[in-house]
């Protein structure tokens, strides 16, 4: 039986052989290598394809045809895009046809259909404004909020897909000097044609095609580049109790001139300082920081949103003007003027714990603060094919006056703190076009700043310490810091496919001066200087040269390694002749850092980093004379410059399963800092005296953190959590005792987001924190504190675009001695667009429960405080926004 089947198979096979013809062969290139994937066509005399095949890996092909086929005029043709087409006529009794193809430069004829291409380098995304705009939208910001991926925060910061944009450009120009927050709110949607998101935005022409930046640029493309029309937007609002808010914007944008100007005023708690601040700073400019030495009180701001406690009366003028000529030379000026009148009212009870004793303070402050500020800058830019040059000159003027009356446990008095600010700076930046692949940059910045301050206290405080036990009438503490800084650097950057190297040489020269004097008014009306020391007149010089070499390797989705080895030579000299003090420091540092990231698979990675750092403190930690920094703190230093060196190391692990929508991450980090001096605090019932002492000490800290989120399919809601636990050990020196302290802190937060019936959205966020600290001595002080902050937000969209929002927030905190605070805040908001009038109506009711006072608990190992702040009570505000 089996034999018969075999015979049958053989017969069928032979029969097939008879009925078929198999042409075969190999296709190779001139070097003899097999060509795979070439099309092999059997064509008839008319050029029609009768049968076809293609070559496999070894270049072999076969074409099976019926034997009945007439061979006359048949051709075998081999085609491949990289080679010239070749033909061989089919000959009788020949079945094998091998081909050797010649390489072709371009075997495809130019195709006729062409159109102007939109080049999509680095993924530019263009949004057509008309596609997203709705009738009721007025500003370009209203439209941008509808665009997928764009997010605009309360302070005007724009993010694209979660990443902050580098800068905003209007018609390709940076008009606002980085303060773009005011622009999107002032430009009408009708002026803009498209919005471009440029993923790797490179505004500098000489660097195009050279330095792929990581920056996202957002460009507003003008609808009419030749329009000289001025357009305006306005908003006016009024409410209870006695609230007003208004703003006017005038905008003109064309190819040559761009200007955005606004005038604003409010007393509703809106802070204009975000419009004065630069949201994006060009480059990594190191600007000298001058901090104020004197202050009116000792309590900080409460932990509430700023508009809850900012009791203001502010005005703002913002002028921005840009002119560009045909030769790509750009002139720009930006001016901001700001005035304000703020009211601050709080009282505060603080307990300071020493190893043996507890000392209490009480402070009640009622203050009016009147600051003003005027910033102006002139910018010149040449953005040419051969070079890029930018020079910015800026001037900042400001002053602040604080009148306050203070009640302490032992005195009632008034005080005035006045301060002035002056800053002048020039930033010069040039990038020449190089023929090589690398990029060279040169910057040179000069800054000069002065900040004089004067604190007048209309009472004779701390008679034992300051006036040898004699009563006196008043005192004036004056302090002034000034700086002149020169800062230049040259850098060379070379970016390869995987390897990036950067070399940088930076030079810094800094002169600073700190002056202070304490003057007392005696009972007889005469003024004399504080007798125990000569005040301060400190000169500080710093020179620094640093060279750094940074290397990184990146293999996309596999690993990233980066190493940085900066070498710094620093010379610091400071002198105070009145104390025969003259110190010199020469330091040579190598501060290496290393980071490594390894992708385990597409959804998991591990990273590790290590760094070592050295630093020297500023002149604020070396002045010898006593300064009354506030009515109850005297500060003087009796130690060398604080030197700090520290290690920081950490590992993180990230895990995700996108299909299950599960994300987890965790990490452990360790920091160890060693300093050569320690802040010593001498506490009496009236005064806290700080002195820096030369006692070396170490602070170690471990931190463990984890977080994650999961989409719950059954609830159709997202749940996320974050946790954090840290232990810190350090030493505190209080009243001549060195007290080791250990801090534990744990923090956990949960959030849940859910949409109901598609029109209602619900968001819950809860945060619980627990901190515990203990002085590591016998009968040492122990403190702990718990805080629970919960917030529920809900918004409903009702008919015709009417939006209704409700927010409820509860804050509960409690310390170990039983002090507890519990607050409920509730806000609502109603927004309705009147399409016919092109107006937006907005009704806000904040703090419905009318809470006028807020208490804040603060606890540390050595102190506990309870502050009571006056905050804004219930507010009702109606706003109308319109075009003109």
């Amino acid at each position, binding site marked *: 039986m089996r034999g018969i089947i075999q015979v049958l198979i053989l017969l069928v096979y032979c029969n097939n052989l008879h009925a078929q013809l198999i042409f075969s062969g190999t296709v190779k290139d001139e070097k003899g290598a097999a060509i795979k994937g070439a099309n092999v066509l059997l064509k008839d005399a008319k050029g029609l394809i009768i049968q076809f095949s293609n070559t496999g890996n070894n270049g072999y092909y076969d074409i099976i045809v019926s034997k009945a086929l007439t061979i006359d005029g048949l051709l075998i043709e081999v085609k491949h895009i990289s080679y010239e087409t070749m033909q061989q006529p089919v000959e009788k009794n020949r079945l094998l046809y091998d081909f050797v193809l010649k390489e072709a430069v371009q075997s495809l004829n130019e195709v006729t259909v062409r159109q102007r291409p939109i080049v999509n380098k680095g993924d530019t995304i263009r949004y057509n404004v008309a*596609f997203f705009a709705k009738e009721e939208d007025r500003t370009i910001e209203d439209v941008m909020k509808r665009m997928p991926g764009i997010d605009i925060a309360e302070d005007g910061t724009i993010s694209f897909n*979660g990443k902050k944009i580098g800068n905003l450009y209007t018609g390709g120009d940076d008009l606002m000097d980085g303060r773009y927050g005011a622009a999107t709110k002032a430009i009408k949607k009708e002026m803009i044609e498209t919005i471009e998101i440029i993923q790797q935005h490179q505004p500098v022409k000489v660097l195009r095609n050279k330095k792929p930046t990581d920056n996202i640029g957002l460009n507003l493309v003008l609808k009419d580049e030749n329009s000289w029309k001025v357009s305006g937007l306005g908003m006016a609002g009024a409410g209870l109790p006695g609230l007003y808010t208004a703003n006017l914007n005038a905008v003109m944008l064309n190819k040559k001139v761009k200007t955005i100007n606004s005038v604003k005023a409010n007393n509703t708690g809106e802070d204009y300082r975000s419009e004065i601040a630069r949201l994006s700073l060009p480059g990594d400019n190191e600007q000298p920081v001058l901090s104020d030495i004197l202050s009116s009180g000792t309590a900080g701001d409460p932990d509430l949103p700023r508009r809850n406690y900012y009791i203001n009366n502010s005005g703002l003028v913002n002028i921005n003007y840009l002119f560009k000529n045909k030769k790509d030379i750009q002139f720009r000026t930006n001016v901001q003027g700001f005035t304000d009148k703020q009211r601050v009212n709080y009282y505060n009870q603080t307990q300071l714990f020493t190893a043996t004793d507890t000392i209490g303070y009480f402070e009640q402050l009622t203050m009016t603060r009147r600051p003003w500020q005027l910033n102006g800058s002139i910018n010149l830019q040449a953005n040419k094919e051969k070079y890029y040059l930018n020079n910015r000159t800026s001037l900042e003027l400001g002053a602040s006056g604080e009148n306050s009356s203070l009640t302490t446990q032992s005195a009632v008095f008034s005080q005035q703190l006045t301060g002035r600010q002056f800053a002048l700076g020039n930033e010069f930046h040039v990038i020449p076009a190089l023929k090589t692949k690398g990029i060279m940059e040169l910057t040179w910045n000069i800054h000069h700043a002065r900040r004089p301050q004067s604190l007048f206290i209309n009472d004779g405080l701390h008679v034992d310490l300051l006036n040898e036990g004699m009563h006196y009438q008043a005192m004036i503490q004056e302090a002034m810091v000034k700086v002149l800084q020169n800062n230049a650097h040259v850098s060379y950057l070379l970016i390869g496919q995987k390897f990036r190297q950067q070399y940088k040489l930076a030079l810094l020269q800094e002169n600073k001066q700190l002056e202070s004097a304490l003057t007392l008014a005696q009972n007889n009306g005469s003024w004399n200087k504080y007798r125990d020391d000569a005040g301060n007149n400190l000169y500080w010089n710093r020179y620094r040269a640093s060279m750094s070499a940074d290397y990184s390797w990146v293999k996309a989705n596999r690993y990233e390694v980066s190493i940085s080895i900066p070498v710094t030579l620093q010379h610091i000299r400071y002198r105070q002749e009145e104390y025969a003090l003259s110190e010199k420091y020469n330091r040579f540092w190598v501060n290496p850092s290393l980071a490594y990231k390894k992708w385990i698979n597409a959804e998991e990675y591990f990273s590790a980093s290590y760094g070592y750092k050295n630093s020297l403190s500023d002149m604020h930690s070396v002045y010898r004379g006593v300064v009354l920094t506030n009515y109850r703190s005297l500060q003087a230093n009796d130690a060398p410059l604080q030197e700090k060196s520290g290690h920081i190391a950490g590992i993180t692990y990230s895990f995700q399963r996108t*299909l299950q929508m599960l994300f987890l991450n965790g990490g452990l980090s360790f920091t160890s800092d060693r300093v050569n001096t320690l802040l010593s605090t001498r506490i009496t019932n009236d005064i806290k005296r700080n002195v820096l002492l030369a006692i070396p000490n170490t602070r170690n800290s471990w931190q463990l953190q984890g977080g994650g989120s999961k989409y719950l399919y059954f609830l159709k809601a997202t749940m996320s959590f974050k946790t954090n636990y840290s232990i810190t050990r350090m030493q505190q020196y209080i009243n001549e005792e060195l007290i080791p302290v250990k801090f534990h802190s744990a923090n956990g937060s949960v959030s849940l987001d859910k949409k109901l019936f598609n029109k209602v959205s619900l968001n819950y966020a809860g945060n619980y924190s627990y901190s515990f600290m203990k002085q590591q001595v016998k009968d040492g002080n122990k403190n702990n504190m718990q805080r629970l902050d919960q917030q529920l937000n809900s918004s409903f969209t009702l008919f015709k675009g009417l939006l209704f929002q409700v927010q409820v927030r509860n804050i509960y905190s409690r310390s170990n001695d039983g002090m507890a605070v519990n607050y409920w805040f509730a806000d609502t908001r109603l927004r309705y667009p009147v399409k016919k009038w092109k107006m937006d109506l907005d009704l806000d009711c904040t703090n419905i429960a009318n809470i006028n006072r807020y208490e804040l608990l603060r606890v540390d190992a050595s102190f506990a405080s309870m502050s009571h702040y006056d905050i804004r009570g219930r507010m009702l505000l109606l706003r109308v926004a319109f075009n003109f």
Partner: protein
Amino acid sequence: MLKQFLTLSGFFICGINAKSQTPEPMVVKVAYSFIHIIDKQQPDTLHNEELVLRIGKNSAVYGSYPFSAVIQPREEAPPPPSGGVTRVYTGRPMAVVNDWGITNWQLVQKPAEKQLTRYESVGLSGYEITEKFPVIKWTTNTLTKKIGEYTCQQATGTYGGRNYTAWFTSDLPFSVGPWKLNGLPGVILEAYDEKQEVFFLFKKIATAETGEITCNESFKPPVKVSNDALNKAKRAFDENPSGIVQAQSGVSGDVSMRFKDRRGKFHSGEAATKLLAEKIKSEKSVLKNPLELSK
């Protein structure tokens, strides 16, 4: 990780969803009008879209990325400066839902390797699905016609339960075509089925600009999944797009939803919610007459 996710969503918005991992220099691209008449009685159930086949020497990518767009390699972003601090970004993505007549996948054909891969995204995540490489038994006929500048020859073959007539040109020596139709010794410039329900009609053709490639490089490799798992994710996404995007991106707070209709217009708020409900309903009738009647 989050950053990459968020960046990925940018592509979702443009309508080029997941990307192949292996772009190569493009040689030529062909735009087709794809028409699928789902129900001849109901004229509004019509899928009509311009789809583009970008052909390279070894592979071809078929999807909805606009014909006029020239894809060029992304320059390697510089690695983060060393010693840098981990940046924490604020801001949130949006959930964008496409209507059913919008192609949100890319098909990559590699004829020499006999590989067919689909790249598709749901919300912010990209997925890779390995498809069965079609083996179509084509019969060439003697009919020819001119399409554009090219003389095409007719061939017939069956795929997915439909009998197709295809017009191909051996002047473009690539064994590829629109959708999953391939295997002829030249590019298929036109194809339609016997029932006159599915059409791939030639629209235009262009050779590559300098540096043009077949598709965008992916920011991160897509996750390999099975078709069933992907369908489950797609269903969950349509049921609660905002929730899914929120879960994928790990942001807290409300993620707003946008609905992109077949004309390319975006809708928000109530309109979007209504359109999404309509999409889910009409998709059921679309499923009654799919492109592939049988596997």
